[in-house]
C-alpha cells in the first residue's frame, strides 16, 4: 500500500514537470482582460481576425477584477506584461504605468490619415485615454489607450412597479422623487437600489449631485484644498443621502450590496428605481426578459444647474510599449474598434459601442442611455482628482448617514479633518 502511494507520487511529479507553459509564439498576440461576460464574444472575434489576417490573438481572462489588478501589478514588476492589456483603475494608476514605460503612446497611429481612426470614435470615449498638455500627472501629452465601448450611469425605473403605485410620470426634481418614494413605500415597494456596498458607486452618485449643486469649478477647488468640505454646498450634497434615508427611499441593506446584487434585485422587480450603468441592460435581459424598464436622468436638486452623469469609455485596452509585436497589436485594436466588430460586440454583449457609426440596431434602452451621452463627465477628464484617503472617508461617511449613524455635518467635519491632514503631508513632502 505504501509503496503504491509512493509510486503514484513519483508518477504525478513526472507529469507535473513534463508539462510547462506554452512558450510565446511570435505570431500570437496576447490580450489580458477581466470581462467575464464578454470573453466568449472576444474569442469569436479573435477567430475571425485569424481567418482574415492569419494573426493569432489569444484572449486570457483573469477575474474577478481585484485579482486582475493584482495580476497586472505583479506582471509590471516582473516585466511580463502581455502585448495588449487593460488597466482597470484610476487615471493615476494609468499614469504610473505610462511613466514606468509600459504603455505605448498611440498618438501617431490615431493621427494617421488625417485622424481617420480618431474621428471614428466618440470624443468622450477618446478623452478618457487622453493626457492633455500640462496635465497634473506629469505625463507627456498623448493618447495612451483604445476605448472599446462606451457607457454611462443613470437611473432606471420599473414601469410596472410605478404603475402599481399609481405613479404616472417620472420625477424631474428630487423633491418629486422623494414623494414618489414615500408612495411606493406605502405600497410595500422599495424605492432605489444601487451597489452602494462598493465605494465608487456611492462616489458617482454623490459626485453627480455635487456637480448639480455647486458646479464643477467649485468641486475642483475643493479637491485643490481651496474650499473646505464643511462648506454649505457640500453639506447639501451629504444631505441628499439623509433625505433619501428619512423618506425611506432606499432598499434594505443597500450599503452592503455589491453592484452585482443590486442589479439582480432590480431585475427581479424588488425595487422601482435603480442607479446603474448601461451595462445593466445585458444583466436585466438575462435575468428577467419580461422586465419592463426605461432610463431617466437622476432628478435635479438644483434646477439652476444641469444634472451631470458619469460616462465615457467603458473599457480600454493599452499596448505594451516594449512589446515586439506592437504594430500588430495596434492593428488588431484598430480592427476591434471598426464598425463591424463594434456592432457585433454591441449586439452580443449589449453594450454601447465606442465607434459612432456602429450604433445602428441598438437595444431601445441602450439607445436611451446613449441619448444622454452629452451630459457625461468622468473623473479621468477632470483637471484634479481627490486623494483616495479622503474619498474613502467621504464615501464611508455617506454610508454612515444612510444607516443613521452620523449627520451630514459630522461627516463633513471628519472629511475636512482628513483632507487637512493629507494636505499637510503633501506640503511636508514637497519641501526638499
Amino acid at each position, binding site marked *: 500500500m*505504501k509503496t503504491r*502511494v509512493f509510486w*503514484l*507520487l513519483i508518477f*504525478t*511529479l513526472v*507529469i*507535473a*514537470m513534463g*508539462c*510547462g*507553459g*506554452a512558450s510565446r509564439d511570435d505570431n500570437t498576440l*496576447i490580450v489580458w482582460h*477581466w*470581462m*467575464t*461576460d464578454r*470573453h466568449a464574444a472576444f474569442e469569436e472575434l479573435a477567430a475571425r481576425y485569424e481567418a482574415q489576417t492569419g494573426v493569432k490573438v489569444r484572449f*486570457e*481572462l*483573469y*477575474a*474577478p*477584477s481585484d*485579482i486582475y489588478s*493584482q*495580476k497586472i*501589478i*505583479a*506582471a509590471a*514588476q*516582473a*516585466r*511580463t506584461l502581455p502585448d495588449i492589456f487593460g488597466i482597470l483603475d484610476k487615471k493615476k494608476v494609468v499614469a504610473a504605468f505610462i511613466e514606468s514605460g509600459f504603455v505605448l503612446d498611440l498618438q501617431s497611429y490615431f493621427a494617421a490619415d488625417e485622424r481617420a481612426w480618431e474621428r471614428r470614435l466618440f470624443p468622450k470615449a477618446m478623452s478618457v485615454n487622453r493626457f492633455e498638455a500640462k496635465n497634473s500627472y506629469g505625463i507627456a501629452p498623448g493618447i495612451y489607450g483604445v476605448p472599446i465601448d462606451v457607457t454611462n450611469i443613470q437611473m432606471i425605473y420599473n414601469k410596472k412597479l410605478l404603475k402599481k403605485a399609481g405613479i404616472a410620470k417620472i420625477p424631474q426634481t428630487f423633491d418629486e422623487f422623494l414623494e414618489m418614494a414615500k408612495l411606493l413605500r406605502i405600497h410595500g415597494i422599495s424605492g432605489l437600489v444601487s451597489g452602494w456596498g462598493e465605494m465608487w458607486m456611492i462616489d458617482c452618485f454623490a459626485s453627480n449631485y455635487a456637480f448639480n449643486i455647486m458646479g464643477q469649478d467649485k468641486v475642483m477647488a475643493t479637491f485643490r484644498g481651496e474650499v473646505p468640505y464643511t462648506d454649505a454646498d457640500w453639506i447639501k450634497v451629504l444631505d441628499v443621502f439623509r433625505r433619501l434615508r428619512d423618506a425611506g427611499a432606499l432598499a434594505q441593506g443597500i450599503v452592503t450590496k455589491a*453592484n*452585482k446584487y443590486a*442589479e*439582480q434585485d432590480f431585475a*427581479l422587480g424588488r425595487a422601482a428605481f435603480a442607479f446603474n450603468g448601461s*451595462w*445593466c441592460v*445585458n*444583466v436585466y435581459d*438575462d*435575468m*428577467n426578459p419580461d422586465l419592463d424598464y426605461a432610463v431617466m436622468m437622476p432628478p435635479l436638486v438644483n434646477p439652476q444647474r444641469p444634472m451631470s452623469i458619469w460616462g465615457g469609455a467603458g473599457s480600454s485596452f493599452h499596448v505594451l510599449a516594449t512589446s515586439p509585436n506592437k504594430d500588430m497589436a495596434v492593428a488588431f485594436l484598430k480592427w476591434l474598434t471598426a464598425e463591424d466588430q463594434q456592432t457585433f460586440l454591441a449586439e452580443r454583449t449589449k453594450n454601447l459601442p465606442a465607434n459612432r457609426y456602429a450604433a445602428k440596431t441598438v437595444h431601445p434602452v441602450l439607445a436611451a442611455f446613449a441619448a444622454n451621452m452629452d451630459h457625461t463627465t468622468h473623473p479621468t477628464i477632470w483637471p484634479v482628482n481627490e486623494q483616495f484617503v479622503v474619498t474613502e472617508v467621504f464615501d464611508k461617511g455617506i454610508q454612515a448617514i444612510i444607516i443613521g449613524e452620523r449627520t451630514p455635518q459630522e461627516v463633513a467635519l471628519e472629511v475636512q479633518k482628513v483632507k487637512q491632514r493629507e494636505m499637510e503631508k503633501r506640503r511636508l513632502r514637497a519641501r526638499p
Partner: protein
Amino acid sequence: MLNRYQIKSAAKTAGVHFFLMAVAVTCLFPIFWMVRSSLMTQDTIFSDKSLIPAQLHFQNYWTAWVEGNFGMYLLNSIIYTVAVVGGIVIISSLAAYAFSRLQFPGKNFFFYLFVAAMMIPLPGGFVPLVVLMNKLRLANTRIGYILCMINVGLALSILLLKTFFDKIHHDLEDAARIDGCTKLGIWWHVALPLARPALAVIVIFNSLNVWNEYILALLLLNNQSLMPLQRGVMVFQGAHSVDYPVLMAGLTIAALPIIIIYLIMQKQIIKDLSSGAIFG
C-alpha cells in the same frame, strides 16, 4: 422494567443525539440548498421557494462541465493536489521527525523559524512571490505552482506532526533501533505508520487548501491548460450576470472530490486505534 439508571442513560443519549442532529442540520442545509439550486433554472431559482423543485434540470451539470471546461481543470486540480500533498507529507514528516527525535545544531532555531513563519501571514505576499518565480523561470509552470503550494502548507504540517510525534511512546522506535534500523528506516517503518491519524489530518487540510485555491493560480499561471478547477468555476460568476443554477452545479462538482478524500482519510484516523501496536 427500566430502572432509574437506564432511564437516565437513555435520556442522556437522546440529548446527545438531539444536539448532534441539530448541528448536522445546519451543516447539511446549505449543501442541500446548493444542490437544489443546481437543479433549477435561472428564472425559477429565486421565485420558487419549494424545497425540492418540480422539474430536475440535470443538464445544468453537463453545461457546467462543458462550458467550464471542467475536464481539463479537474485533471489539473488532481495533479496539483496529489503532488502538493504528497510533497508536504514527505517533507514535513521528515522534518517533524527530526525536530521531535533527533539532535542537530540549530534545531530550536529552525523550529521556531517555522512556527514564526506560520504566524506571520503574507497577505499581498503573492505579488513578490510571482516576481520571484518569474526570475527563477518557474512562473507559468506546473512545478512552480506545486512548489509554492507546498511551501504554503509546510509550516503548519511540521508543527502538527511534531506535536503528534512528541506524544508517541519511544518503545517501538527503541526496539527498531536495537534491531539495527537506520534513522530513515525508523522514519519510514515506525514513525510514519504511528502518526497515521495526524497524517490523515494533514492530508485533508492540505488537500482542501490546494483544491480551493485560485488566487495564486490566477496570478502565477497564464496558460489556460494549467489552470485548476476553481478557475473553471469562476467563469460562471460573471462580473454582472451570475448564472446561478450552472454555478451551483459547478460548485457541487468541485466539492465532490474533496468530500471523497475526506471520507477516505477520516477512516484512517479511526482505524488504527484498534490495531493496538502501542496500546496493545
